[in-house]
């Protein structure tokens, strides 16, 4: 019976993943069409690459070489055809394969985002629980004040403050750069702070809601210890909303990393995206948006799967 259940679960999981995959294809196609068309409305990369000195003839020649004078649908079909063979095209500015450029930056971006998510999780959950348990006490008030500040402070400003304090004044960590584990501390804190604030608030409110429910009262009346009530009964049931928010935040962190990467000279995808946008480097912009999209979709799939782990009543399939 147990083996049969496991088999059914595995089958459900496979069906779920297959369905999500099938849903992803049209979504990606729509995103690609949008990005492809919108980038081409923003200007001519040939005039930017060749600069003030170039003649109109050489600008036209370059546009021809890049295929930018072809009708848009033809350009898109070429792009799509290349993409299906794993070719994301070549950067117009750097004349290098886009895939290689993204690959060499992706690690740094993922590292920063994962570190921020990890930091957000390990800080916000205990703080949120503490605030809920100590409801309306001084520690709850202090946490709530911290949450407001954390959500209000812009990342750029926070990053500069952290650099000046911990990098320059105290000299504990490098002010910027990439290379050692110590380099990630300030950018990860900067990126994570608003997420920590948001998640703390959410964990607190979820916990408060659960702690006031009938089954918690029942558990307490049965004489269960407070830690057991908290961690076995309340905590697990309060996780759904924070976990959902974490997935949304993961997607936002990828975008917010642009500012942090700029301030801390972190060589991630955000900076590459920014440079590509300024240079109208269409293939690079398209490639990065595609990767960002895949990351967001992946994060959502992981969250859906985690629901089943958190709450056995949720069935995958």
């Amino acid at each position, binding site marked *: 019976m147990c083996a049969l259940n496991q088999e059914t679960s595995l089958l459900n999981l496979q069906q779920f993943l297959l369905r999500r995959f099938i849903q992803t294809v049209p979504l990606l196609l729509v995103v690609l069409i949008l990005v492809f068309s919108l980038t081409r409305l*923003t200007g001519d990369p040939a005039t930017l690459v*060749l600069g003030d000195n170039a003649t109109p003839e050489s600008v036209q020649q370059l546009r021809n070489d890049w295929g930018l004078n072809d009708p848009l649908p033809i350009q898109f079909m070429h792009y799509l055809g290349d993409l299906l063979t794993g070719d994301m095209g070549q950067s117009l500015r750097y004349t290098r394969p886009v895939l290689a450029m993204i690959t060499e930056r992706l690690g740094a971006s993922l590292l920063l985002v994962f570190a921020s998510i990890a930091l957000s999780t390990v800080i916000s959950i205990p703080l949120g629980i503490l605030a809920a348990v100590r409801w309306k006490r001084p520690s709850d008030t202090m946490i709530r004040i911290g949450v407001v500040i954390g959500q209000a402070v812009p990342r750029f400003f926070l990053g500069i403050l952290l650099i000046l304090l*911990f*990098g320059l004044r105290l000299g*504990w960590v490098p002010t910027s750069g990439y290379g*050692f584990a110590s380099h990630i501390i300030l950018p990860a804190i900067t990126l994570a702070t608003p997420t920590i604030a948001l998640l703390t608030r959410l964990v607190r409110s979820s916990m408060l809601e659960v702690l006031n429910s009938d089954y918690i009262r029942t558990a307490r009346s049965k004489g269960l210890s407070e830690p057991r009530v908290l961690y076995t009964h309340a905590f697990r049931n309060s996780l759904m909303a924070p976990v959902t928010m974490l997935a949304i935040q993961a997607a936002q962190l990828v975008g917010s990393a642009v500012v942090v990467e700029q301030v801390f000279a972190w060589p991630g995808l955000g900076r590459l995206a920014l440079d590509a946008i300024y240079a109208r480097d269409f293939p690079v912009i398209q490639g990065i948006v595609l990767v960002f999209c895949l990351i967001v979709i992946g994060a959502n799939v992981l969250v859906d799967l985690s629901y089943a782990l958190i709450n056995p009543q949720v069935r995958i399939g």
Partner: protein
Amino acid sequence: MSVHQIRSTVPPQDFTMQVSTRRQLVAAAGLAGVSLAAAGTLRHTVASQQGATLTIGFNLDPETMNPNLTTNIASESVSAAALEKLALFEAETMEVIPWLAESWEYADPTTFVIKLKSGVSFSNGEPFDASAAKFSIEEWASQPVMAQSSAVLEGMAIDEVDESTISIRTVTPVPTLPTLLGRYIYAVPPVHYQEVGAEEFGRNPIGTGPFILESHSAAQEIVFTRNPDWWRGPHPIERVVFRVMPEELSRAVALEAGEIDIAYYLSSSTAKRLENAENAVVYSTEGLRKFISAFNAGMPGGEPLQDARVRVAINQAVDLDGLIEFVYEGQAVKLQGQYALPQEFGFSTDVPAYTYDPEGARQLIADAGYPDGFSMTYAYTIGRYPKDKEVGEIIATYLQEVGIQVEQKPLEWGEFNQQRSDKTLGHIIQFGLLLTPDLADTFNYMAYGEEVRGAPMMTWSDEWWALYEQSLTEVDATSRAGLYHQMLQIDHDQPYGIYLFAPFDFYATSTRVQGFVPRKDQALLLFDLSLQG
């Protein structure tokens, strides 16, 4: 002893070694623990801690290190660690001085003979000789990105007179050939260059310079090591690291923290912050990047600008001294009613500056037939140049005070460029120009711009064009300066644009850097740098 003093004595490259106390370890371990697996994947790309390493906090990651493919001075500064030009501008006077060329002369008005230094070779062993110099000039002139500058050489022929002499024969006399050598002509090894192509050469440049490219980690750093066979003898610095740090405040703080030795290209406010740092030396120089707001009288609605009185009035309406004081804290040179800077060849001391006179401006506009003012669009870039947005906003306010209704068009650089190509930018167009220290280049830019880009522009008088044509072939420097004076006087009486200012450029180094001289052309040349201690 204060923390600051302790830190100021730590050599820049020893930074990571400072994390030694328990508190520091706890701080470092906090996130390192969280990202333990990831930390293992971090590449140890920071340059070696051993030996004399110069670390430069640099504002960009060059799109190419082939100087024939870019006119960006910052990108060129990176490639200049490995590549050298035939001539240089002297850092302070901006006079052209020989470098890989030993000397030059006009044999006749259309024949320019260059004698090259002998005994120079590229780091791959190819000799730098007449053949290499010929190839280098021809390759530069063939690149579309150099079209405006190389236009004067169209139809040229280069002869190899002997192993170390070349002769450039031009269709018409080209008085600016030494300037072109000083600004553009880098020696490239012909065999290798042709073998790999211009783009690949931009990724792995090889030159005659003091350093050899070791590695380039995208968006992180470009590392060069000493060229043991440099023709001036091995450079005292063993290794040079350009650390890519786009944010200028990050560069300044990193310098203060002792992580880098040079903070390249800072704004006045950031430089001011560093003036109090014990371990930093701040340099400023009168830069060559000048700002002009050109009149686009040909655009629909630009009719008022066709009257020279209106153009003079607009110049009188702007309080340049106040603007410079407010935006740049006084750290800029005012253009004296002309678009030449005092440090440029061709500057005329006889052309007077406009005086700030809003009343007079209103009167002139009324005299021109617009007693109730008129409407204009004013386009400017955002973030392309330091404080460009603030300058645009303030000038728009000045114009409004004399009765001109201004529609502001603040534009990101890509959009600005696009609209310039489409000729839809606006009636008054604010931009910065960083060219050679020879006014010929500015005139060429303006004339070429009108011809090729169709903007910015206004119609010059036939007299102006005649003087311009004459100046293009006038080899005698004094006569050419005389022609420029006449042209500048015309451009003063019938202004081409609002002649604004040239902000100072700022750099900062650690106290251990010796021999740093801030250059007016914003280039960073490492030839005479050394490190103390």
